[in-house]
């Protein structure tokens, strides 16, 4: 057994453990699940559903993050070849990172990294 077949075996085991735990809990629990409870609101009742278009204030941060995340896709394979590809690979990668950091600096100056 090797590689991803071991991963598959472990995943199977994880599912079995989870199912076993839930099954055990079902056997020993003191009561069947309580349904349709109100959410905890300090003792008050909700007046509307909590699920809503949540106003996240870090949209801009998300955008910069995506730029870096794309860069990561290149950087993982880059680690494997950097010593054989030589100085060129290092220069290219870090110039690229430098350009991204310039973007971060701009976003920082614009206040995108602090949203209170």
């Amino acid at each position, binding site marked *: *057994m*090797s*590689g*991803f077949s*071991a*991963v598959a*075996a*472990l*995943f199977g*085991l*994880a*599912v079995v*453990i*989870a199912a076993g*735990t*839930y099954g*055990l*809990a079902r056997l*020993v*629990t*003191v*009561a069947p*699940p*309580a*349904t*349709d*409870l109100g*959410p*905890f*609101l300090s003792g008050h009742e909700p007046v509307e*559903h*909590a*699920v*809503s278009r*949540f106003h*996240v204030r*870090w949209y801009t*941060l998300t955008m*910069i*993050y995506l730029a870096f*995340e794309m860069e*990561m896709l290149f*950087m*993982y394979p880059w*680690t*494997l070849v*950097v*010593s054989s590809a*030589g*100085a060129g690979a*290092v220069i290219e990668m*870090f110039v690229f990172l430098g350009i991204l*950091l310039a973007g*971060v600096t701009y*976003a*920082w100056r614009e206040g995108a*990294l*602090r*949203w*209170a």
Partner: protein
Amino acid sequence: MTEVPLWSVLVLPAVLAVITAGTIAFDAVLAARATGATGSPSQTAMVPLREVARLLVAQRRTTVAADGVLWRTGVLTVPIAALLAAVVLPLGGVAVADLAVGVVWFNAMEILTWAAVWMAGWGPNSAFSLTGGYRFVAQGLAYELPHMFALITAATAAGTLRVGGIVEAQSGLWFVTWMPVAFVVYLLSAAAMAFWGPFDAPVGGDLAGGAAAELSGVDRLAFLGGRRLLLVVAAAMAVPLFLGGGNGPLLPPWLWTLVKTVAVLAAIVWLARRFPTVRMERFAEFAWVVLIPLTILQALIVALVVL
């Protein structure tokens, strides 16, 4: 890729469960010390077991108009992703699967918690939970990039993404000695990805438990147990990445791995109690303006060394 015996698949969850229980007990010891009460050692050792028993017998609950499927998927993803992330952990020389892309695999599994915590927060249709779930996404945006640069730094030094290869590359000098920044950032992000203190805002007391606010019974066990498991796995990963894996004098490699893992965990759990909860609206700035440039600099230095 070496063949690994089937028993390692069975041993891994057992070892992790024991270490996780130990982590909970150690945290309970620290909590007891703060209160000035002198709990007996046997009582403290019982804490994780009592918690499990308590959550097994407790009633499960669902809220009005909850999205049950999403909610439970999120809850169960946390422990399963944590366990799957652990496949690449070498115990001594043996990992369940020493994948060629081990570091990326670990990264991918650990990042599943973003989705998991958000789903667990959205599911119960409760304002506090929902806010907790979103808090974790914001947290991810702050810790993840420094974390990935730290991973990449170690991989660059070894010239491989295979965790076993990274350990072999440290047979002489441990990576922590010449990439301390990456190591420290890794420890920070280990706490952050498991939303452990001081990064516990997603399940913070100020939100009545945040993403975990509406969880009870075995669901709570899966979610919060999975979170502790993730902390253990993340801390254990620091050992092959930076602390030389099983390398060390006298003791056998598997024992060295365990000793180092426990030391890293103890440090994280102890440090977590030394700081108040860090809010992302403040920390994101620090992460992006200080930690990311520092880790990039660290990666640059390492890249220049391996040239």
